[in-house]
């Protein structure tokens, strides 16, 4: 089996001499092409490719899952399920869509939210909450220093943008994204009119989008 050569082997050095090259375009192209390449190899049942995909994305996915389920045990299980699904369903993934991370993070979030909405999860949390369970987590440092810098820049930009919107808007966005509440549920929880929730959510997302556009790559 012959695979396309990974772009990272020549892109940084060669691209610097190409007219019109920008850091933004490099940042965007490199991870996507590599992830797509890995997905193509996974379709061919290349375990090493799955291993590399895991190494690349598991830390980010695990962080989001943990934030939602607040349990390492549940997060372990969900993360494993996601990569098993990648292995078994890679052929159904549309490589033309490009954004592997979007696909993975969507799976991770949906599964995590399904888990916290499940009856078993609620019962287990009622019986024994584990406040100290998430202590002592090890922050992940990427294998590649360049990749670490790029991810770190994007993460910093998003955090800064999030701080740039109002606390009320931020709270509504975080409850929706990390706790899986619908607009009606948020209104009930925060004891405010549904219309207010909708307005804060819409305005907060637009403000965030406005703050991020131009700072990081945008599809």
């Amino acid at each position, binding site marked *: 089996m012959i695979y396309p050569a990974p772009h990272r082997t020549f892109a940084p050095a060669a691209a610097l001499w190409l007219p019109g090259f920008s850091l933004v375009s490099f940042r965007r192209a490199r991870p996507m092409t590599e992830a797509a390449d890995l997905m193509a190899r996974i379709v061919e049942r290349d375990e090493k490719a799955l291993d590399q995909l895991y190494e690349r994305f598991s830390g980010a996915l695990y962080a989001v899952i943990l934030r939602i389920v607040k349990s390492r045990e549940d997060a*372990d299980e969900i993360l494993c399920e996601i990569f*098993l699904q990648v292995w078994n369903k890679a052929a159904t993934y549309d490589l033309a869509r490009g954004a592997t991370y979007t696909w993975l993070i969507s799976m991770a979030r949906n599964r995590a939210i399904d888990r916290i909405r499940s009856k078993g999860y609620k019962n287990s949390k009622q019986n024994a909450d584990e406040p100290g369970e998430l202590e002592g*987590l090890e922050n992940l440092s990427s294998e590649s220093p360049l990749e670490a810098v790029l991810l770190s820049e994007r993460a910093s930009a998003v955090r800064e943008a999030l701080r740039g919107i109002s606390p009320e808007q931020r709270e509504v966005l975080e409850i929706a994204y990390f706790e899986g509440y619908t607009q009606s549920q948020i209104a009930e929880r925060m004891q405010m009119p549904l219309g207010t929730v909708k307005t804060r959510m819409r305005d907060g997302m637009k403000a965030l989008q406005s703050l991020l556009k131009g700072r990081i790559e945008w599809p």
Partner: protein
Amino acid sequence: MALTPMTKQEFLEACQAHALGALDPEDRERFYLALPHADAEMNAALNDALHTAELLSLTQSAVAPRPDVKRRLMAQIHAEAAGAAPARRFSRETRRPLLERIFGAWMQPRLGLAAAFSLVVLAAGLVAYTLSLNDQLTARQTALADAHGRMEVLADSTRARIESLEDSLSRKEAMLEVLRARGMQMVALGGMEDTARYGKILWDPERKVAVLQVSLPPEPEGMDYQLWVIRDSKPMAAGVFQVSARSGDGMYRIEQLVETDKKHINAFAVTLEPAGGMPQPTGKMYLMGEI
């Protein structure tokens, strides 16, 4: 009531909530009804919202999963590749109850069958061993009962022997007591038909102790020897005795003479009477002696 698709304005306003997964069920259905008819502006708005929502995940610092997650993932993939059972829910699965983890393998058909056969063989062996032990126990219980019976017989015999010796000792002590007495009286009894038969009575009137010593053949079944005191020419019963019941010394303590005044006694006689004695002599007289 059938839901209607969102209008363009509603769609544009709902894109952000949809990207966050926060639409209520009815709004979500109306959003999906409108999606196939979305124009470029609507699609662009949706893509922007989806990308913005995706970026929210970056607010979390990456966290390294535990190493065993990857190991288990790869193990499951290998198991599936080897044609094993479908992927299991590893986390919950590895936290099965202790007994299920220990005996889980037994539930597999072949191992279960082998285990069942072994158990049957083991049970049969145990039954045979138990029956053997039961037989041994019964034999030992029988032997023990026999030994216990022999011990009881021996104890009875010993007890009887002791009683006999005690009685003999008591009579000899009585005779010695009589012999040591200053006013001891002795009456010789002679055989009436068989001169080989004889007897004597040792009597201490002061201390009121009397002993009979005889040499007589064993009495027939259902008969006793009876001693008579001839007082003022009238026989008075003075007690019955059995020669066969004695150990051979032929000595008897005579209780009835204790209160008798010797001045009124003329003679003693021994007859053979029905068992228990008679008020008057009816049987053959064996011994007779006058004072």
